[in-house]
């Protein structure tokens, strides 16, 4: 009921009639479903014909992207015993934090954050699902302060917010799914070096201030403005550590091919943010020296039965270690050819899936693939070019497979700031 009510309110239908079916539902047998239906139909009949209520509640802050949003409210915090302790106590009570201590967004700190952009504080950058809260420049700045960001990071965050709001990203589903999907931010271009966004050793780990706080700020924005709170509209069964922060740069210096943003049509001198709905990371430690072997073992890692990629034909990602990228490049392979080889060699027989997952696949991909039988070879994505590849990391023979949510496509937006 809480989830349905929250969703209905977010869409302006707070009085939407909601009938409740007990959980678990999806795993029960046919007879149990029938018993639930017999109870549920009584709720439906009662709700459909109930005396209508009159509501005059108006949702504030409802403005389209690019228009002016509401000013942020102020909350007075008594220093009991001190500001840091008192504010973090409030954050725990009001669920404004990701579970870690945050920085109090005083007027002075938020004003300082605006020095990173020329955009006006009240400009709405995007509406963020599932609550469709308006992410104003001010709101983004406030959450950037919470996360511990430098003011120079604000343009990167603004671009990230624009990107997650792109329709193809499907933020509504990523925010509210039982899947562990987290938003992975990839930064390209000169701004990565200028801000110290790590794309080398330990780039997906801890230690780099920019990586940690930019990813964290986006998660706080998605919670506080987007409304995805765990257990409420965020229904992730386990979630994943990447929901604290998940941000890196591409290691463009050691990338033997074109950088991701160049591949996507931006000049090398521009800076971009790409957001990916990532399920998690799987290490691929291989000493393979031959390109054919490397491609074969990577494709073998991608191929796994309980995979949304195969169910929907979506957009899996590979983070190639510089050493692995060089092996492939030295063998004469372009990035596009690597994608094509991976696409061919990662085909998976549909029969290895559980019957219920094969059913989902048939529902999702019959239009694309025709009749799908257990002996059908499923492609991991609709096209080879849908496989995402970046080069990142330091020394070592470890690449990373990053499967994705399924019904999502990455989105890239330019970072606009005074300096490039």
């Amino acid at each position, binding site marked *: 009921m809480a*989830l*349905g009510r929250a969703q209905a*309110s*977010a*869409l*302006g239908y707070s009085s*939407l009639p909601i009938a409740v*079916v007990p*959980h*678990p*539902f*999806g*795993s029960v047998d046919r007879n149990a*479903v*029938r018993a639930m*239906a*017999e109870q*549920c*139909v009584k709720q*439906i*009949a009662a709700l*459909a*014909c109930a005396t*209508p209520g*009159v*509501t005059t*509640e108006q*949702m*504030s*802050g*409802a403005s389209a992207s690019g228009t002016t949003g509401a000013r942020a*409210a102020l*909350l*007075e*915090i*008594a*220093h009991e015993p001190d*500001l840091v302790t008192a504010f973090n106590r409030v954050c725990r009570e009001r669920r*404004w934090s990701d579970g870690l201590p945050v920085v*109090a*967004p*005083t*007027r002075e700190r*938020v004003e300082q954050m605006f020095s990173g952009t020329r955009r006006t504080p009240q400009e709405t950058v995007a*509406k963020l699902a599932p*609550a*469709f*809260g308006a*992410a104003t420049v001010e709101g983004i700045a*406030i*959450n950037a302060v919470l996360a511990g960001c430098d003011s120079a990071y604000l343009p990167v965050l603004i671009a990230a917010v624009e990107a997650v709001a792109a329709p193809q990203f499907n933020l509504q*589903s990523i925010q509210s*799914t*039982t*899947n562990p999907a987290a938003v992975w931010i990839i930064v390209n271009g000169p701004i990565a070096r200028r801000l110290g966004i790590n794309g080398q050793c330990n780039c997906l780990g801890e230690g780099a201030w920019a990586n940690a706080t930019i990813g964290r700020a986006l998660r706080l924005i998605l919670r*506080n*403005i987007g409304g995805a709170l765990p257990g409420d509209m965020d229904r992730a069964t386990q979630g994943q550590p990447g929901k604290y922060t998940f941000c890196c740069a591409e290691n463009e210096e050691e990338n033997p091919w074109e950088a991701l943003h160049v591949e996507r049509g931006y000049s090398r001198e521009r800076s971009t943010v790409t957001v990916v709905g990532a399920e998690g990371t799987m290490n691929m430690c291989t000493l393979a020296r031959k390109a054919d072997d490397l491609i074969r073992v990577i494709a073998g890692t991608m191929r796994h039965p309980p995979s949304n990629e195969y169910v929907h034909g979506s957009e899996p990602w590979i983070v190639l270690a510089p050493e692995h990228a060089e092996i492939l490049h030295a063998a004469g392979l372009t990035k596009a050819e690597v994608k094509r080889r991976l696409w061919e060699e990662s085909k998976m027989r549909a029969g290895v899936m559980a019957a*219920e997952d094969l059913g989902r696949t048939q*529902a999702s991909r019959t239009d694309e693939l025709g009749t799908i039988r257990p002996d059908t070879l499923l492609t991991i994505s609709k096209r080879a070019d849908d496989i995402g590849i970046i080069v990142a990391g330091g020394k070592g023979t470890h690449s990373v497979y990053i499967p994705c949510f399924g*019904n999502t496509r990455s989105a890239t937006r330019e970072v606009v700031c005074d300096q490039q």
Partner: protein
Amino acid sequence: MAEVTPVLVPTAPSGQKSEQPKRTLDTLQGRVVGFIDNAKPNFDYLVDDLAELLVTEYGVSKVIKRRKRAASIPAPEAMIEELAQSCDLVITGSGD
């Protein structure tokens, strides 16, 4: 008295449009009921059972069933428009 510092609230109001008024039916007798199957496990069976019960026990005259291609994508606009035009009541599901 403790020192006080004002901080800016990090949340934003929910919602993207003004509140819609609730509408109800006087009766289900003779009505047309639509279903958008959310493609979650067992929801198709629930739709079948509810449809049968609404017809046999509540006098619903007709049921229109439509199913999303997958749970994690929105229902197509054409599907929504069809059911909005054809039905007195539309039922769908959220969550597992």
